[in-house]
């Protein structure tokens, strides 16, 4: 091959040679670049994944060395018949819809407000973003401090408005409190993403709408929202995938209580695995959660595909 190319550089052999010369090392180089990271990632994801499957069909013994005893479908049978478990899933769905829903509505609202601010928008946005960087466990602990019925700032505010209950002590208010703590932390993320989307709508488009006589609401409804719908979808998916990942806030505030009111699935899983050390059953729960999150990931990638971002 090299011979042919040398003897007649412009001949048809060269085209073929160029393709092989370019393609062969190209795959090789990229492959070499990817391999260290991908090998480690495979070790950190595929091995645990297989272990998770194996565990979900076993009884896991920890004392005297780790051992898996085949248990067949026991864990799965329990999973599908456990009434408490179904309540947890239901609660998880409610928690998920409430947190993500509120964050989307408030985040978009804040972004629309900020979008109208011309001077000082950057500083306002920077300040609004701060909660996002706080460790969720600290947010939970801070929330506990603020809602403490004897000296909490927010409890004091509510008391002067006439509410005297123990916020984290009764089921409904505890659930509302952990939802609001999550909303406090993650609404800024939605606002940030939405604002980026709004800013990318060309000024000329908005001016044209104004010239055509579109009012504020019309511009919003027919110009801005359609233009940022993809961005909003990305925000929704990013938030959705993390909403079921993090449960730190609940873990440090109510620990699932009072009376299981805030016991969403990951909290129950942690309790099953690391308080009762029933790792087989925990693995079955974990696998079910994994399926749920993979469905979200699929949607995310398909969306990026449509927008041509994974090319």
């Amino acid at each position, binding site marked *: 091959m090299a011979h042919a190319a040398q003897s007649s550089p412009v001949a048809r052999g060269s085209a073929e040679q160029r393709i092989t010369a370019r393609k062969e090392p*190209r795959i090789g180089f990229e492959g070499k670049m990817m391999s260290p990271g991908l090998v480690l990632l495979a070790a950190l994801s595929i091995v645990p994944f297989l272990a998770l499957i194996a565990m979900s069909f076993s009884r896991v013994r920890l004392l005297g060395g780790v051992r898996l005893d085949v248990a067949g479908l026991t864990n799965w049978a329990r999973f599908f018949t456990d009434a408490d478990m179904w309540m947890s899933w239901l609660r998880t769905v409610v928690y998920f819809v409430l947190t993500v829903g509120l964050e989307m509505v408030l985040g978009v609202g804040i972004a629309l407000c900020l979008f109208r601010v011309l001077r000082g928008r950057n500083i306002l946005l920077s300040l609004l973003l701060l909660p996002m*960087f706080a460790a969720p*466990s600290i947010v939970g602990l801070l929330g506990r401090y*603020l809602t403490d019925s004897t000296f909490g700032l927010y409890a004091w505010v509510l008391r002067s408005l006439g509410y005297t209950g123990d916020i984290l002590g009764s089921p409904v208010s505890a659930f509302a409190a952990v939802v609001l703590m999550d909303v406090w932390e993650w609404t800024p993320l939605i606002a940030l993403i939405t604002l980026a989307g709004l800013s990318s709508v060309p000024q000329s488009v908005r001016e044209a709408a104004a010239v055509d006589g579109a009012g504020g609401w019309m511009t919003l409804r027919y110009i801005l929202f359609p233009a940022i719908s993809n961005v909003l979808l990305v925000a929704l998916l990013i938030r959705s995938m993390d909403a079921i990942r993090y449960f730190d806030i609940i873990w440090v505030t109510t620990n699932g209580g009072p009376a299981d009111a805030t016991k969403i699935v990951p909290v129950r899983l942690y309790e099953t695995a690391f308080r009762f050390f029933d790792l087989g059953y925990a693995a079955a729960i974990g696998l079910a959660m994994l399926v749920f999150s993979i469905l979200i*990931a699929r949607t995310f990638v398909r969306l*990026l595909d449509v927008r041509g971002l994974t090319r």
Partner: protein
Amino acid sequence: MSTSTTPPSPTPRPAVADEAAHGRAIAAAPRGEPQSPLESSSRRTRWLVTLLIVLAMLWTLVPLAWMLLSSFKNRVDVTASTPQVFFTPTLDNYRNLFRGPNNLAPYILHSVLAAGISALLAVFLGALAGYGLARTQMRGKRHLAFWIISTRMAPIAAIVVPLFLIFRGLGLIDSIPGLVLAYLTFNLPFAIWLMSAFFAEVPSSLEESALVSGCSRWQAFYLVILPLTKSGLVTTFILCLVFAWNDYAFAVVFSGPNSQTLPIAASQLVTQTGIDWGQLTAIGTIVVVPMMLAGLAVRRWLVTGLTLGAVTGE
């Protein structure tokens, strides 16, 4: 705009005058006139917007400010039944944190090591693999990308359970390397995907010309492409650092006396007998403030980073 100040020659005059008039109209806009369609709002909506922003700022900042304030309060003020805004500040809470048997210093060290090393490793491996992923034309690239992103999205609870068993077998429980590996489960796929998004922004014609001028593939990457994605590298590093630093779910299972991190130290102050809220708010401040500063340092690239490259910044 600058053209309007120079005396125009007779012929192009109408056009320039037009432009100047237009420019003046825009310049005049902020004073009362509607500037953009969204600005064409009544005074009432403008008041409403201001009010909403003030409310949002209060909702966002009051808890943080309260944490900061309380960390400087003494034992009595911090649990006063009427919240104290004016008080004599004291550094006792911070001082006590570094005193006695439960000194905070080792926790800080563990946090810095676990989060720092995992973030560095993630960025290093993520830059290599991200470049490969951005440039490869292999078949099944989409499936590969999907696999990578789905490992990032896997619920922590579902990863911790099998990892706990594996780490127990390997003796990685209660060790910094164990925590680093645990954090890589989410930081590595994040870094690969995000770096790949940053590399995809760099036109591949740049490497091609580097190759023509005699660079090897590695040199083209290292000398030409990598310096162009410096902001991407920094953003990826900082976000990985924040994710790992803020972790609680992994650390609560995998760490022990030799590896407990700051969030664990904070949660350990919560005991059956009572909570020293002064110290707790002090730890909270120590955990939260560095990450806020780091996060704001890369604010320009936050949108790109946090959407994994799906949305590009302002």
